[in-house]
């Protein structure tokens, strides 16, 4: 037991270094106003770049990104809550085929497919525009939402609904009065995760939206590729905030099945 405690302490220190080491260099760069080699730490530290970031294009990217994420979340929920319910409750024709199509985007690399989707979107004159970015985000979000919604509704015992139908409630009414309120915690949890997915989406936004529609990840990517390291680092720190908040809030509800598609943004 004592050995386990020592191992645990060593482990925690080591893991903290592994997890926070890379992140700490973001913090240092975010306040570095002047940093020439061979100085190991910045020669001049300050919040100059923080001010710069908050006045510049970043705010615009943030606004656009949040707007896109809101629309994606709402549309995904509207489309997948009924669908998830049907998939969870009924044996219906073509179910396997439908589920297979919703499995595809999980099973294959997105970039080559999205590159071809971009051709379609540009043909429809949606390329480089916010609706186009919303649509490409919807692909990932929908897949994720369909699977979690189905899981959420499956976790509600059918007997609770049968009890209501037994008392004379219609299917629709039962869904409204019984299933939906019971599913609400699950729906809210996955709504938050869809929101975060859209906020963090990179590949699709880069292909479809960039450079005309910039969200925060693409903005950060550009800044990093341009080696504006303080700007990129500040944006990177800002990008982590929603995720960390969600992690703290949702920690208890983070079930593996909700998250399995999440490491793949």
């Amino acid at each position, binding site marked *: 037991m004592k050995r386990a405690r020592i191992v645990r302490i060593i482990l925690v220190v080591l*893991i903290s270094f592994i997890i926070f080491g890379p992140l700490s260099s973001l913090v240092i760069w975010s306040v570095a106003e002047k940093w020439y080699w061979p100085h190991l730490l910045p020669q001049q530290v300050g919040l100059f770049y923080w001010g710069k970031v908050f006045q510049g294009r970043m705010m615009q990217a943030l606004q656009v990104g949040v707007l896109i994420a809101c629309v994606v979340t709402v549309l995904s929920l509207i489309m997948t809550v009924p669908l998830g319910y049907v998939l969870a409750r009924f044996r219906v024709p073509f179910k396997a085929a439908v589920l297979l199509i919703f499995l595809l985007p999980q099973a294959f*690399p997105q970039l*080559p497919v999205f590159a071809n989707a971009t051709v379609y979107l540009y043909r429809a004159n949606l390329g480089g525009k916010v609706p186009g970015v919303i649509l490409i985000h*919807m692909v990932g979000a929908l897949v994720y939402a369909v699977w979690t919604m189905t899981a959420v509704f499956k976790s509600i015992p059918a007997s609770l609904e049968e009890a209501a139908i037994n008392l004379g409630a219609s299917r629709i009414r039962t869904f409204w009065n019984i299933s939906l309120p019971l599913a609400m915690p699950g729906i809210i949890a996955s709504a938050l995760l869809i929101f975060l997915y859209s906020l963090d989406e990179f590949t699709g936004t880069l292909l479809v939206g960039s450079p005309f529609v910039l969200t925060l990840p693409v903005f950060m990517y550009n800044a990093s*590729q341009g080696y504006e390291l303080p700007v990129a680092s500040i944006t990177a720190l800002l990008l982590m905030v929603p995720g960390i908040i969600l992690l703290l809030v949702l920690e208890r509800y983070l079930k593996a099945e909700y998250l399995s598609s999440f490491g793949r943004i």
Partner: protein
Amino acid sequence: MKRLRETSWLIVAVPSLAIVVWLFFLPFIRSAVTSFQTEDGAWTFQNYITAYRLYAGDVLYTIFVSGVSLIAVLIIGILVSGFARIYGGGVVEFLFKIPLFVPFVVVGHAMRVFLAPHGLLNSALAQIGLVNLDNPPSIAFSWVGISVALAWKNMALAILLILGAFESVGDTFLEAARNFGAGWFRQVKDVLLPMSLTSIAVAAVLIFTSMLASFSIPMMIGSGKGAQMLMIDVYYRIVYQHDYGVANALGVVSYITAMGAAVYYLRSVTKG
């Protein structure tokens, strides 16, 4: 489960299906079809020949980097999950959940500044005399950097899935082994691991595909020298050379690799 015979339920599926079909299923088919076409639409294998000539090494490199990262992730993931399962997770578990919520681009950028030759890691190691800064090892801008970043990002997912599987193994199975003197490692090796193989294989496939398909991380900390990750080649082929034929041929190679991994693992698991 109630049986509905009507196909009218598809009405609720149509909006979401339409989007996924239009922007994933059809582009997927298109990429496969155009990989066999010239720019003028004639049928050809030329794209694959060019892809093979220019990028055969990159395909192997991608599989190598993804494979190494996957093995690292699995080994660490299994050991940490095993520790957390037997002695309790707590802080360790929480810390490892953090990377799950750090976007890929942020990981790429953070690793680039952290692992650069004169980055924070080398500077810190130089302070305790482990690294000579006049000739520092460049972890970033090499396959090691890509592997480290990919492993860092995917570790959270691996631990989430593996620990989930480990938790579902009852205490008594472990105690029965402890009773005979099985230590921590043997409990993991003899009991937890074999009893969770299916879940671990699923996690491995998910993670491997994700690594194979990684784009922003190798873009930011990969080396311009030598072999490239496959997605970088696809991206450059499209954005710089506007050559959808070869890019799609590479895309098809990546689909097949991803599928191959899935089929191989699922089969070996269900059979063995």
